[in-house]
């Protein structure tokens, strides 16, 4: 939130990408946009940064508020170790340099949903400084990778989230919900390393994947777990940077590109008409696709920072210094976390594409849906799984079923074992794709998590493999449609489709179409079959 922290580089040290630059030149002529981002990521921990109250999103209003969260006089902050650990893991994944000593500061401003009258943040000595994130620039419409980007991280700091204000215009009053007040945030500040909305968007998407794979942030933007502020300016090539504006609280991943690009165009339009850009804070309106000035101009704000006197500095240790600590269990050893950082999503995606020959689109989908990749990974670890079937089942059947029911993969009812079992059943021809979908519906909508095999048996959703029964069904179909049999005999072989269709229906679609076709062909007159072959040869 503190824009002072963004250090704009000298104009000549730009790290921009061939492709996007060309694009920019075509569209914007000589204007060069410079964008830096500040991302507020809610730390996924059970309790808040400085108190014991919970952090869940859906709790009833003002039901997870401790005395400290409500800023009752005399209460003191007590740092939540889990939040520091999450910060350390995130910093390691972003290749950031962790400060062995970091400190907390108070940032003062009056707002109804800020009960203390100040936010505890890390202004002077943050948890970590520096770092970088490599990301793929992905075209949204084609889902194709069109370039690679690198964004440098300025710093990562821990701070408190604020509460929420609900403004009741009719009653002319504000209602305050403090459930969110005091939840831990990681503020991740980048260098101004982006030159358009797509890059900013692609970076945030990648960062979100990283945080999710670390488990340090849910990344749920709808719940406000990840919010983005963008500092944007445009300038002429070879000239100093222009005056920047800050677009605050972009709360939707798709809005990032739109908001940044709109603001760039707005600034260019003003400058081309000879106007000047005002240093101001703006908000993005998703409905109109425009940015609007916010009422409280940041220009006038002096946050009167001071050190937080109630919290001693946060001291972190490494494998060398930990031995000097009397009680190592009471402190955090950075090196212990270093080994537990999973491979970053970008790397995993690249490996996936190489190893399984899947498309970028499929890889992105596996990663873009929370919980999906883990399930994919775990199922493939089970014996005898065909990649094609697993992907097909997860990306289409299960994803489709969850999506229509508004269930996330994380919270989804299907267990790893049962998903693997259902895929096995298709593989073993115990059931087929159409039946498997029905089993899935029974499974998801049922109250209990019953094994798919049992569901299949109970609901008669297994395949019929008994040749006698299938032959009987074929005969019934022929008896039902003597005209069709005649037509077939005359050489119009297409008539067999109708016969097969009816035969399938007699089995309640529980037969393999291939097997039915074979039986049907064997039952129909041989002569006609020859004719058919001859006809085929003619064609």
């Amino acid at each position, binding site marked *: 939130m503190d824009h002072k922290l963004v250090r704009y580089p000298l104009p000549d040290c730009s790290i921009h990408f061939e492709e996007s630059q060309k694009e920019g030149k075509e569209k914007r002529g000589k204007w060069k946009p410079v964008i830096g981002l500040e991302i507020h990521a809610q730390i996924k921990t059970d309790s808040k940064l400085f108190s014991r109250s919970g952090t869940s999103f859906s709790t009833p209003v003002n039901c997870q508020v401790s005395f400290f969260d409500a800023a*009752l*006089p005399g209460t003191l902050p007590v740092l939540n170790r889990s939040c520091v650990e999450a910060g350390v893991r995130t910093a390691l994944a972003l290749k950031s340099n962790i400060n062995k000593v970091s400190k907390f500061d108070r940032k*003062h401003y009056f707002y109804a949903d800020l009960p203390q009258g100040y936010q505890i943040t890390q202004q002077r000595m943050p948890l970590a400084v520096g770092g970088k994130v490599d990301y793929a620039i992905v075209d949204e419409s084609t889902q194709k990778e069109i370039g690679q980007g690198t964004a440098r991280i300025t710093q990562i700091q821990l701070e408190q989230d604020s509460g929420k204000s609900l403004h009741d215009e009719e009653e002319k009053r504000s209602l305050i919900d403090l459930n969110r007040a005091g939840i831990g945030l990681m503020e991740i500040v980048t260098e101004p390393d982006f030159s358009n909305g797509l890059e900013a968007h692609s970076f945030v998407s990648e960062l979100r994947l990283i945080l999710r794979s670390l488990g340090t942030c849910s990344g749920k933007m709808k719940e406000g777990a990840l919010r983005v502020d963008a500092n944007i300016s445009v300038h002429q090539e070879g000239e100093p940077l222009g005056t920047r504006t800050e677009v605050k609280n972009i709360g939707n991943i798709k809005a990032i590109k739109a908001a940044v690009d709109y603001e760039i165009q707005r600034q260019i339009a003003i400058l081309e008409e000879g106007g000047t850009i005002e240093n101001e804070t703006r908000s993005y309106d998703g409905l109109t696709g425009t940015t609007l000035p916010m009422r409280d101009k940041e220009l006038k704000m*002096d946050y*009167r920072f001071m050190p937080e006197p109630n*919290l001693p500095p946060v001291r972190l240790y490494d494998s060398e210094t930990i031995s000097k600590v009397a009680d190592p269990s009471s402190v955090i050893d950075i090196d212990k976390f270093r080994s537990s950082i999973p491979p970053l999503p970008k790397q995993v995606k690249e490996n996936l594409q190489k190893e399984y020959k899947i498309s970028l689109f499929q890889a992105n989908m596996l990663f873009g849906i929370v919980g999906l990749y883990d399930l994919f990974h775990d199922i493939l670890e089970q014996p005898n799984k065909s990649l094609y079937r697993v992907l097909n089942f997860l990306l289409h059947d299960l994803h489709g079923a969850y999506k229509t029911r508004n269930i996330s993969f994380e919270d989804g009812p299907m267990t790893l074992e049962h998903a693997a079992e259902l895929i096995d059943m298709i593989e073993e021809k115990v059931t087929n794709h159409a039946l498997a979908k029905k089993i899935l519906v029974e499974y998801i909508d049922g109250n209990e998590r019953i094994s798919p095999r049992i569901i299949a048996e109970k609901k008669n959703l297994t395949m019929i493999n008994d040749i006698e029964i299938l032959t009987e069904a074929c005969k019934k179909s022929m008896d039902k449609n003597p005209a069709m049999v005649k037509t077939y005999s005359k050489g119009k072989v297409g008539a067999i489709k109708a016969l097969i269709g009816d035969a399938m229906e007699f089995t309640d679609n529980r037969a393999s179409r291939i097997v039915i076709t074979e039986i049907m062909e064997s039952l129909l007159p041989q002569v006609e079959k020859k004719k058919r072959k001859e006809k085929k040869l003619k064609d």
Partner: protein
Amino acid sequence: MAAEDSDWLTNFDLSATSAQNFMKPGYRKQELNVIYQAIAKLKDGSISMKELYEKCITRAKKVEELNAFVTVNYQNTEHKERIATKRSANQVSGRQREWRKLEGIPLAIKDNFCTKGLRTTCASHMLHNYVPPYNATMVQKLEDEGGVVLGKTNMDEFAMGCGSVDSVHGPVRNPWKYPFEQALNMEKNNTDPFEQALNMEKNNTDPQRSTETGRRADHTSTHHIKDWHIAGGSSGGSAVAVATGTCLGALGSDTGGSTRNPAAYCGVVGLKSTYGLLSRHGLIPLVNSLDVPGILTKTVDDATILLNILAGHDVNDSTTVADEFLPFTLPDEVSVKGLNIGIPKEYHAPGMSSDVLAAWRRAADMFEEAGARVSEVSLPHTQYSISCYSVICATEVASNMARFDGVEFGHRAGVDVSTEQLYAATRHEGFNDVVRGRILAGNFFLLKKNYDDFFLKAQKVRRLISEDFRRVFNSGIDVLLTPTTLTDAPQYSWFSQADGRTRTQEQDVFTQPINMAGIPAVTVPSSLSSSGLPIGLQFIGQHFQEQKLLTVAKWFEQETDFQHLNLDFLDQDNDADNDLYMSPKI
């Protein structure tokens, strides 16, 4: 020298036998240790908890006009006493084995400690209606050991002051040289002075009261006495409660001398322990980095009892030290032979009364005669303490007071035009001008353009002040001896002529540097001035060396034989309602 040193150490390092020694009958100072005495008498049954409690309540009512209490807890206390009495009976009959350390001991708590279910005002209109939902750790620890909270004591608003005169509840009066008899005669005509005072106090906190200037109504007019000596502050109410025998011990807070100053003026012991030894959780802050809960008792031994109960790590206060605190008792036979006493030459400050100087000299001589080595030391940066404090205090006040906006708790103005105007009106009405002045100054010091010139510079000076003490102690000094205040307790009429900031600059000169350094200090009454008012001397020790500090203080206490204030004549008055309260029926 080596021999002397070892002599001191041997004597100092006393074994656990001292506790038994302490209970030796006929020990010279024993009768003064009211908490020790009370515990012993309660245990042997020579006084019941009910009797002790009623004695305190009776005294409280007799000295009501000193305005020491702002909220009394008598009803609740009676309930607790009943429970305690039952426990006591159980203990005697053997059904309950444990006797808690403070079982049935009446105590008073400064009104800036949160007390669950008991109004906590910080002597401010801002919190006139505030009832905390939790206990401060200090209060909880006392109650866990069976201590009984009689009530909340008066203070300067948000502890900003040194006279206990800037209170929304009116000023506190010093019991020394107070014309009680005159007051008694005058009040004979009234029905119940206690009820009357309660009503008066209710009126004082009426939110409808005009607060245009932020100045409080003049409370002196409601009483007959024209002038008196101030109690000192900001923990004046607690000091008066202890000095008058209303309670056996009290909690104060000490940011720049707020416990030691009133203790000295009221002739009691005031202990400010090392920063980080006592939890601040639930203590409504003045300056977080300087605040320390203070202990007020009649004697050094009594202070030690309370310190043993209160000290130690608190998970709710990250600034308390994690090391385990080992309780200690003070030896009865103390020798100061070989002890190194330092006399800081900078403490010969202008404005010091000849009585105080004489008391200080006498004390130094006493130590020397007893075999201690008394040497002059220098604390060159002490002179900057006051200006340094002005900046640090104001900045933290500006920050700490930001939460008082009328949204979650406390006073809320009846303005509904906008949130900003609600804040402005609430804060204007809620705070007195001393508080508002410090908020304004603090916000000025914290502005980006001023931060380095004021706040940062003040922090550097603070470091230098702290270094002064470290250097002196590293040179071999065990304890520093200084006066606590420049003079004896000033007259209210004189004191109220200047504003709070001016008075604080004068009053806190000897006490404030100790808070800057975070080290422990204790004031012990030494003698009476020519006007018959108590004079306190201050002993300053090293970080976490409370045991050594208090041992020296106890030696001094024994040697001086200070005559405590005795108000027993108030109980002998044949007042009708007095008899009523002494009657066992009630």
